């Protein structure tokens, strides 16, 4: 598998994502600067977390208009897999590659902590190494992770089984107490209709190394390797 990580001014999880990808891939992804207008030939494009352009105006809004995002859209339309994590998810919604919007957390505070996620689907390139219904532990770290979409859009997501992850408690129960940011229906990650674009607020790259206290994120990268190699 060949991968590229997009770097915007203000990205700050680009290195973390590179390390996690390299660990699964056995080689390094290409780091592509936001001002570039061409992408190398890749199977996966990863949009990392951080505060692109300071997240001023709206999270992800300015990055969505970077020159490179036109290329990302073009590659995506050809079926190249796209993974957006945290700020990357926000960029993908602002770009229109994913529906809905990530609003300010309901308690208005930044939240950084481990959360539990229920893996909702395991038939995607991102999740084949998980089992649907499985509970995993991964951190979140965001200010604007409160997923919102209109009722029709929501119904469509659910009908098409495009909710990839939901916030849950340790036992897998989807409860309001387990929802760190007020997301509609505890949605933590969603897929596009082709199921080859995933946006998620939690950071699998931060728990892909036992030395950091957990390894549940690693299966996401392993899934990609087995699907795209």
């Amino acid at each position: 598998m060949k991968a590229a990580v997009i770097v915007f001014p203000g990205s700050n999880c680009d290195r973390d994502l590179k390390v996690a990808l390299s660990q699964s891939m056995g080689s390094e992804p290409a780091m592509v600067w936001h001002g570039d207008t061409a992408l190398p030939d890749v199977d996966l494009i990863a949009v990392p977390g951080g505060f692109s352009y300071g997240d001023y105006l709206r999270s992800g809004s300015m990055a969505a208009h970077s020159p490179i995002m036109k290329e990302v859209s073009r590659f995506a339309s050809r079926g190249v897999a796209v993974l957006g994590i945290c700020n990357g998810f926000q960029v993908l919604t602002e770009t229109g590659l994913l529906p809905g919007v990530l609003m300010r957390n309901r308690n208005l505070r930044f939240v950084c902590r481990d959360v539990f996620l229920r893996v909702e689907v395991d038939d995607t390139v991102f999740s084949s190494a998980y089992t649907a219904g499985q509970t995993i532990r991964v951190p979140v770290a965001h200010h604007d992770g409160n997923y919102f979409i209109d009722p029709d859009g929501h119904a469509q997501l659910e009908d098409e089984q495009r909710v990839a992850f939901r916030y849950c408690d340790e036992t897998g129960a989807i409860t309001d107490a387990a929802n760190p940011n007020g997301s509609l229906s505890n949605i933590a990650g969603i897929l596009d209709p082709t199921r080859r674009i995933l946006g998620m607020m939690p950071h699998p790259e931060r728990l892909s190394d036992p030395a950091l206290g957990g390894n549940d994120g690693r299966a996401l990268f392993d899934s990609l390797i087995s699907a795209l190699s």
Partner: protein
Amino acid sequence: MKALVHITLKPGVLDPQGKAIENALSHFGFEGVRDVRQGKYIELDLPDGDHADAEAAVKEMCERLLANTVIENYRVEIVDQT
């Protein structure tokens, strides 16, 4: 010349900040305040010129960057500098 832009959430879109303000106000003892909605207010300086042209340009800025038209409405006003 100045452009004044108001960006507000569309009706029906959840507004966590508005709701938090509403709660806080009632904590402070301000009763009866309801339906608090928080939006953005942006001022820009433009080179003097035709108002209609300027308005069209600023509307395009809103469409392309300033507003997320999936969830937000915008309103543009052009005024002469005071």
